[in-house]
């Protein structure tokens, strides 16, 4: 008899990954690291989607995951382009120093 990993395991892992992503998102200063934190959160959500899709035996969650992956790829393309431009102009990736856009 195959032992089945319960859904709750996946969800806990997803929550841990998401939490780590949030912490990195808030506390890290390097733009690329923040960028990676966002990717981490997205994939944590993907994991939750897949787990639910499997548990309920429905395809909806999987479809959502594809959408998220597509959006993440697009975001990565645009985001990295911005990061490169910012670095060319400011010679830094420290987010605390990129603060000209304010009141």
């Amino acid at each position: 008899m195959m032992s089945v990993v319960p859904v709750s395991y996946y969800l806990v892992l997803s929550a841990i990954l998401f939490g780590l992503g949030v912490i990195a998102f808030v506390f890290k200063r390097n733009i690329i690291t923040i960028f990676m934190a966002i990717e981490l959160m997205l994939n944590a959500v993907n994991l939750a989607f897949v787990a639910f899709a499997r548990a309920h035996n429905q395809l909806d969650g999987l479809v959502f995951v594809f959408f998220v992956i597509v959006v993440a790829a697009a975001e990565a393309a645009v985001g990295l382009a911005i990061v490169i431009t910012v670095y060319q102009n400011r010679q830094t990736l420290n987010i605390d120093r990129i603060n000209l856009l304010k009141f």
Partner: protein
Amino acid sequence: MPILDHLWIIIALPLLGAALNGLLGKNWSKPVVNSIGIGSIALAFLTAMEAVREFAQLSPEQIPWIRNYFTWITAGIFKVDFSLQVDQLTVVMLFVVTFVSLLVHIYSTGYMAHEEGYYRFFSYLNLFVFFMLTLVLASNVVLMFVGWEGVGLCSYLLVGFWFLKQSAISAGKKAFITTRIGDLGFTIGILFLFWTFHSVDFVTVFKQAAGMPVEAFGPAGVLTGISLLLFIGAVGKSAQIPLYVWLPDAMEGPTPVSALIHAATMVTAGVYMVARMNPLFSRAPFAMFIVAMIGALTAFFAATIGLVQTDIKKVLAYSTVSQLGYMFLGLGVGAYASGVFHLMTHAFFKGLLFLAAGSVIHAMGGDQEMPHMGGLRTKIPITFWCMFIATLAIAGIPGFAGFFSKDEILEAAASGPHANVWFYWLGLIGAGFTSFYMFRLIFLTFFGAPRYDEHKVHVHESPYNMTVPLICLAILSTVGGWVAAPHLVGGTDYFAKFLHPVFDAYAVTPTAANEAASEVAGSPMMDLVHALTGMPVIIALLGLLIAWWFYIKSPETPKKLAQSVRGLYTLVLHKYYIDELYNTVIVQPLLWISTNVLWRVIDEGAIDGTVNGIGRGMRESGAHMRQIQSGNARSYATWVVIGAVGVTVLMLGIWEMVR
């Protein structure tokens, strides 16, 4: 019935004339402007007369003849049609309005010949005729109100025709605003009328009113309320106490305007309206009493002011106010036909008086002061004779138009259905004053030695286009009253008989046509003698005699008299200080409240304060709030996380609550 089916043509013609002259006339030569201005009115006159001819062939069941052209307003049960109506009263008004307008238009080509804005003048005059015809042809009270306001607008435009003159502008505004006070009453009256009868059509309203009982004099009912509110409108438009003050000032306008609008037609709109609404008034004795009282008081009061005025047009203005008072006196004592009869004869002789006065002013080179005139009789004979005939007519000398109509009114005041001896005496004494001030005008202007500088003022008779209208009106001022003449020898008053269906259809106690129009009498000869030697005639001759004594025989007497009663003389000369009184009691407090309360406190304080306060509040809170946008992306990230957590907690909380 080609014209009766297309009544709109009558009112469309003057409108077309007004539009053509007003929009395109600026670059046209005078003959073109003339032919459009006069042509449109002449065509309207001919069309109206054709309509009258066709009207005469209708059977009594077809009257009032109503034609509905389109529905103007529909809102729930409130429905107003653009529908026109012809009955006997309309016929009289149609004739008076179109005929006098035609003569005044012809006269204006002479009088206004050297004025700037010639095309503008004719455009306004045509527009006035359009609105006046709308007023008299309307078959519901709302459409009538359109005409009513329209003539007010044209009055404003024409009084202020010389808009570079400050006094003319003020007079125009005064005319407009004063009548507007009355119009407020009229408007509320219309709403009240609709509220009561659920209709604004004359016929529908009158049919319902005919089924209602006559209201008590004491605690009066809804009909009295409606009648009094409508009468407030008439008081404003027809220049009665207490709203008459605008009419004398309106003399700032060109003289043909005074003749047409402020003597013959527009100011009689109030009289027409009350006569039209007779089914309502007849059932409201208190309203009738008020109408008669205002009429009698105005007739007397305005006549006293006319006694001492020195401006020739001002005398005529107060005379008009006074004569309008007689019309209301006639209506108020229940003699509707007599009131309308006086309206018609007054249109002839007062229109003539104004046009003749214009001719005098023209001859004098613009001077209107009677003390500067004198001895003009031989210099301008046509004007003199026409004006003399009109004076005989207004004074009530037997044989002339005014005699018949004024006599009927006074007779009704003495012995009519709502007779009141006080009103009779007021009217009678007013008639004496009328005779006096009119002959005073004639004697001061045309008799005696010239008091102007004959080297400077070149007195000349007016051209034909001015004298011909005078002669036409002089003929009508003479024969215009004879339709009622057989009445004097116990026969039929044909004017009253003609109008009888209008005033009898919804009367409280219907009478037969002949019975209403004729007196039960002894021998015809005795009646004639009685009428010719009655009090009105005696008092008119007395007025003539006193005027002759004062201004021909012994010119020193008036000055001595003025000296001996100096206080009274000054009071009357300054028109009882009514303008000053209104200025102090109404205008100044209103101005003060408007300036210090409405402007400074309500407008600047409350309204501007609220609007500016909201703006300032936004700006100041924004100044603090924008500190959040620090430019630090990590702080934004924190806000995002806080927001997300907040939303999640909130949604979970709601989720729990729903479960």
